[in-house]
């Protein structure tokens, strides 16, 4: 969740001529902070007075005190986290500061390596990995990337990229600057394992997504400043209250149609706006009939308004509701059959929405399987490349069109799991063009009957927005006539 008080507030886009400018200002401010930390650091290690430390507008006083060793950045969906990571890496390495980059998954690590190699020619990049790792094409296609299973062998690289898990087991190398990505999905105990491998760090993450969790349920550390179950950002800020916290003010992924809902429902503490204008994004179909009326109507609505809510008749079902799974598959298949084309600032002339550009999000793993089975049945091979995954694994990913299985569909009640704000946020914020939500009628009643337990814990600030409220406002939006597609029979 977004840290409440932040010593410096990057201006929101509204105050600037264009989103691009606002984003640029934010980025510059962040890099400037990195410089301050770095200068202070080198001065400290040189052990001389802070002479000629030119005063700057930001939290200099704080930063001068050795307490400040990190910069935190809240980045809403598609606000350019990796762009920032790349920029920061270039910035630091150009100042001869070697960098260690920490990601949460190998996917993310490979994506980042790809971006770095592409944007920073000449940068020596190390990809630290576990044994049995197979480098994907997007990594192997670049020259100047060294793969290695132990950190020492990569020590000469300016930037070493790996997952938190691998870093934790790697033999120690000389401390360097760290860039920690998706820090809100990183558990604080995982950061504790790495804490001595870096002296200064840039923490980047999306406060709206899912909190880390553990199969071992316990409240024994509730309220502790070191609760290992809390995310790494919250714990670092609790122990270093002075750290500057920036917010990236612009989403380059979400279309203008999605930003208002996502921003107000999930980011009350750090509102953001769309980087594109409505006319820059559109979704058009080659054919207007896929053979499934409901799916077609949902697709048309989604194309027009960016959202649609395909609502099956009410009934209580198992988690793996085959009818919902089938309906979702039909929408996905319809999307392919109708030859959807996405027009955007990236491809003004329009690019085909291929299977790779489509994602289906579920709450549970067995739902994922049910959808895959229906896809195989209805769509066959062409649908193989469609990403079908749980909210947890979809975090940080981006697609043209997403189809979400509503977490409360067919349920008789709403558990804490199903009301979790982050889960809903992830499902509704992966798309560049449109999001189709599929569920059963009756969700409103389930919500009204299950306001959540609202358990209080000393020393644990309540999280905002509350999942129940987020669900209420999202549902109100989806059921509005412009998105609602009820399926009768």
């Amino acid at each position, binding site marked *: 969740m977004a840290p409440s008080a932040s010593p410096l507030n990057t201006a929101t886009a509204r105050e600037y001529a264009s989103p691009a400018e606002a984003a640029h200002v934010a980025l510059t401010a962040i890099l400037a902070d990195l410089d301050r930390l770095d200068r202070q650091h080198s001065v400290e290690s040189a052990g001389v007075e802070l002479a000629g430390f030119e005063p700057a507008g930001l939290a200099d006083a704080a930063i001068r005190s050795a307490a400040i060793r990190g910069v935190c950045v809240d980045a809403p969906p598609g606000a350019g986290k990796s762009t920032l990571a790349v920029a920061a890496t270039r910035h630091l390495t150009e100042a001869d500061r070697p960098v260690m980059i920490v990601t949460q998954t190998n996917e993310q690590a490979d994506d980042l390596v790809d971006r770095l190699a592409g944007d920073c020619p000449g940068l020596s990049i190390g990809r630290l990995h576990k044994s049995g790792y197979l480098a994907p094409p997007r990594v192997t296609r670049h020259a100047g990337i060294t793969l290695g299973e132990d950190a020492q062998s990569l020590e000469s690289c300016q930037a070493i990229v790996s997952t938190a898990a691998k870093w934790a087991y790697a033999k120690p190398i000389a401390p360097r600057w760290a860039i920690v990505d998706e820090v809100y999905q990183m558990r604080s105990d995982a950061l504790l394992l790495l804490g001595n491998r870096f002296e200064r760090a840039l923490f980047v993450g999306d406060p709206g997504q899912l909190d880390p969790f553990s199969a071992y349920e316990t409240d024994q550390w509730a*309220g502790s400043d070191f609760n290992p179950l809390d995310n790494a950002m919250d714990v670092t800020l609790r122990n270093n209250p002075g750290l500057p916290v920036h917010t990236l003010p612009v989403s380059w992924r979400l279309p203008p149609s999605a930003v208002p809902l996502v921003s107000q429902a999930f980011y009350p503490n750090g509102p953001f706006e769309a980087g594109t204008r409505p006319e820059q994004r559109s979704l058009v179909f080659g054919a207007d009939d896929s053979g499934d009326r409901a799916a077609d109507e949902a697709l048309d609505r989604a194309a027009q308004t960016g959202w649609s809510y395909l609502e099956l008749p009410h009934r209580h079902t198992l988690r793996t*509701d085959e009818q919902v799974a089938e309906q979702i598959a039909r929408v996905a298949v319809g999307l392919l059959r109708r030859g959807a084309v996405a027009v955007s600032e990236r491809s003004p002339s329009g690019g085909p929405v291929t299977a790779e550009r489509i994602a289906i999000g579920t709450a549970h793993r067995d739902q994922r399987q049910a959808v895959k089975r229906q896809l195989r049945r209805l769509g066959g091979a062409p649908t193989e490349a469609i990403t079908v995954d749980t909210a947890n694994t979809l975090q940080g990913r981006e697609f043209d069109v997403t189809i979400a299985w509503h977490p409360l569909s067919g*349920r*008789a009640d709403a558990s804490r799991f199903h009301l979790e704000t982050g889960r809903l946020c992830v499902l509704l914020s992966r798309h560049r063009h449109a999001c189709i939500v599929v569920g059963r009628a009756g969700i409103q009643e389930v919500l009204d*009957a299950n*306001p959540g337990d609202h*358990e*209080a814990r*000393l020393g644990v*600030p309540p999280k905002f927005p509350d999942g129940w409220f987020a669900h209420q406002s999202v549902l109100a939006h989806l059921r509005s006539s412009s998105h609602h597609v009820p399926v009768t029979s």
Partner: protein
Amino acid sequence: MTTGQEQESGSAGRLAAVRGAAAPQGFSARKIAALLDNPECGRRKLLDAAGVDKRVLADRVGYPSLFGQSPFAIARAAAFAEIVRRDGFAELIRLLRDTLNFSLAEAGVADLADPAIAAAATADGLSAQEARHRETVALLRDAALGTQPIAVFGSPVLALSIGGVPAYLEPDAIVHREGGRFTVVGIKAFPVIDGQAPAASLTAAVKQQAVYQIALRRNLADALGDDADSVADEVVLVCPENYSNRPIAVIHNAKQQADAIALLLDRLGGVDRLVADLPAAADFDLSDDGAGAARRSPGELATALESVGARYLPTCRANCDLAGFCRGEAERAGSPALLGPDVRDALPGIMSIDDALTLINDETDPSPDQAEAVAHLRRAARLRRESLSRTEGVA
């Protein structure tokens, strides 16, 4: 969204009729907070709105409530509250100085439980609570306007309309910083040990204070015009520290609880419908005819109860006097709810335990809507059979 009050203004009379001649049972903050436990239980909604004494009712219909508070718990709570209140709230004032940075000068105290207040007002034909409420609002107003140097309001009385039914609520204290905000204070006897309090007690306490927050906001808004942020989202709880009697103050942000309760309060409109749907003959009159004979027989009361839909959960036994009755009802109906939400979730679209069993044992065929769930259940039953038979001796 229109507020409960507006929708409900008419129903108060009909609710009184439902309650019959028995004295109404006021709403307590705890009762209101209980909305969060099971908001869609029509039965509890109606009875609470009508001010029916569920405890007595449960007794009458033969399912005596198993709740009770130990005299020791009560004594302990009273003794601790006395420690916090004595010497002009000296302990509380110390804590306010430590935790909310009250200045030395901010030590003014008002005792709104002073019988003289009630005495004075009964002269103008007000009930004691009405009188204390009037005085409370007047003093809060003065404090807000800075004309009265009062920092601690002891035992104030707030008013809140619950679905058209007026309720008077009595927080332990409200505190006010000059030119600052009002903060609700609760005095609780559960301990804070090494910075942590028992989750259940703490949550209950926070919800309770949240209700006071709502009432305080609405009362101030009426008295001063809309001024929502004159009440802090944080509440102060005064509890014994570790294993001692020494009071310690902890602060918790109750906004989430307050938001949720406020939203539910506004949705209480449902009561209207519930009253309307009640059969003409049905009421919950617990009074007697003066000659000691009950106006309503247990049978009549039970029938009336059954005419209002309940939403039984096993956990009701922890927070509702009527749980015993509702459980009995669920038992007679063989409702899956009896076995808990987990089992009920495993039986989607299956209305009774017997149906479930006959379906699982292949004795009946599932409806199309049930097919999927039943297939899964039969698979589970098969696996269970296999695995048990594989190892004799047990079972």
